[in-house]
């Protein structure tokens, strides 16, 4: 029974990792560039949530809406004003710029919020749990997070496959050079992609803030988990990303069960194993 519990915890943790990964995967899919500052934006969203809810005393629901709106705006403008200028045939400039952004964000947050580890309390929800037969208990918070993650991924799925904007994003993913000749404004499409990705990042950051302690330097390891979930799942597949997150989550929780210090390493080992056995990922869709 203990192992069933471990498995459930791992799957639920995987939902969060899938959310970390979804934004990264979306930006790579549409624009073919990797946002090195992805993890730091997740932490930024967590600090925004902390500011709105803990410091300013807003209702959490209002805080969530505000964080998503602020992050979406930052995403759109950041892409339009900064990142669009460095995107091109050369893949190095966007990597350097987002690497720089990562350093600026970490130090900026350190300056404003100090290096203290923080957390956003969700009150009674923190300790609430649902009892299952066989002595199992699932925390209400992890379950809620998993459901939200599923909801966000389902929302992205509907957006991509059942709306005009989604088709335009997929068209851009296939061949960005052709999009202007179909009347699409590439700069605007790129900015919309980053805006949507930033909205997902906002949700991921809010969850991070409510689930665990975070500090200004927490970004890079979130980026690493996001990378691993994307690669395990296979590039370009939304549900593959969920599977990747779940595999990583289960590996970490099982690792922690064996030895508390083994948690992160277990995730990396499974990631390396999948790279060796199935380098294209479990559900690869995208080529080239």
């Amino acid at each position, binding site marked *: 029974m203990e192992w069933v519990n471990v498995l459930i915890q791992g799957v639920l943790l995987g939902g969060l990792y899938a959310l970390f990964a979804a934004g990264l995967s979306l930006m790579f899919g549409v624009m073919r560039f990797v946002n090195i500052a992805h993890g730091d934006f997740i932490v930024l969203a967590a600090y925004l949530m902390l500011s709105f809810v803990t410091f300013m005393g807003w209702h959490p629901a209002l805080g969530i809406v505000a964080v998503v709106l602020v992050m979406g705006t930052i995403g759109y403008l950041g892409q339009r004003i900064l990142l669009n200028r460095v995107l091109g045939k050369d893949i190095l400039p966007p990597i350097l710029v987002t690497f720089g952004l990562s350093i600026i964000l970490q130090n900026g947050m350190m300056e404003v919020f100090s290096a203290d580890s923080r957390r956003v309390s969700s009150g009674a929800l923190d300790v609430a749990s649902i009892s299952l037969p066989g002595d199992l208990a699932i925390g209400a918070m992890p379950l809620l997070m998993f459901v939200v993650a599923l909801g966000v991924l389902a929302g992205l799925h509907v957006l991509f496959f059942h709306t*005009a904007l989604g*088709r*335009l994003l*997929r*068209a851009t*993913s*296939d*061949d960005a*050079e*052709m*999009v*202007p*000749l*179909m*009347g*699409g*404004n*590439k700069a605007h499409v790129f900015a919309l992609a980053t805006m949507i990705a930033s909205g997902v990042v906002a949700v991921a950051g809010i969850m991070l803030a409510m689930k665990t302690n975070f500090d200004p330097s927490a970004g890079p390891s979130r980026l690493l988990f996001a990378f691993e979930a994307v690669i395990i799942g296979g590039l370009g597949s939304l549900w593959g990303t969920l599977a990747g997150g779940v595999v990583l989550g289960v590996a970490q929780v099982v690792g922690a069960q064996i030895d508390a210090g083994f948690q992160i390493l277990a995730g990396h080992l499974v990631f390396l194993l999948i790279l060796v056995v199935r380098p294209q990922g479990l559900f690869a869709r995208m080529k080239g």
Partner: protein
Amino acid sequence: MTQIVTLKGVSKSFGALTVTDAVDLAVESGEALGIIGPNGAGKSTLFNLIGGALQPSEGRIYWQDRDITDLPAAQRCRLGIGRSFQIPHPFVGMTVYENLLTAAIFGGDAQSAPQTCRRVLELTGLMPKANLQAGSLGLLERKRLEMARALATSPKVLLLDEIAGGLTEAECHALVATIRDIHASGMAVIWIEHVVHALLAVVERLVVIDRGALVAQGDPKAVMADPMVQQLYLGIDADDAA
């Protein structure tokens, strides 16, 4: 007849290489214009300049009376310039219908997009393939899709770049019939083509380009009978065969 696209003294240079050399060209609305010229003469560059993928080094380009030289490609597309490429670039991860729908919604009129797509699917004979992934199509169908996607943006002038190249005789005949239908519907067509007999079956006026410059134009038969054009073409054909 009004002029729909006008080029005035348009030149394009890449460093020391002049690819388009002071071209003056006016296309009437509803006209079918053919463009021929040896490989590397600058025909596709001319399309890139009209479509907005390239900016001219000199000269101005007009849409009716409006100067569109500085307008980006997406806006030119929405004005009514539809462009198809020599090498088809379909959105391979989407179905044929989704390819057209995307073009129709963002390049044409979003309200009537489904009807536009249906009409274009019928016109180009792609209806039976509508729900197939574009990446699974053969060459002829990819070429048709390339043309169909340009048509889905509801253009007033259609730029066709070597669409008959690589097709069999029968396929070529079918394509000519389709382009005739498109032209008969009142759309202006500018067609670059090496398959001259296909071109001559449709166009009303022929332009010859050599080394970026416009060297002859007029009635297709008269232009083809011009000794200079014949020498240019036969000379190049011999080179091609070698």
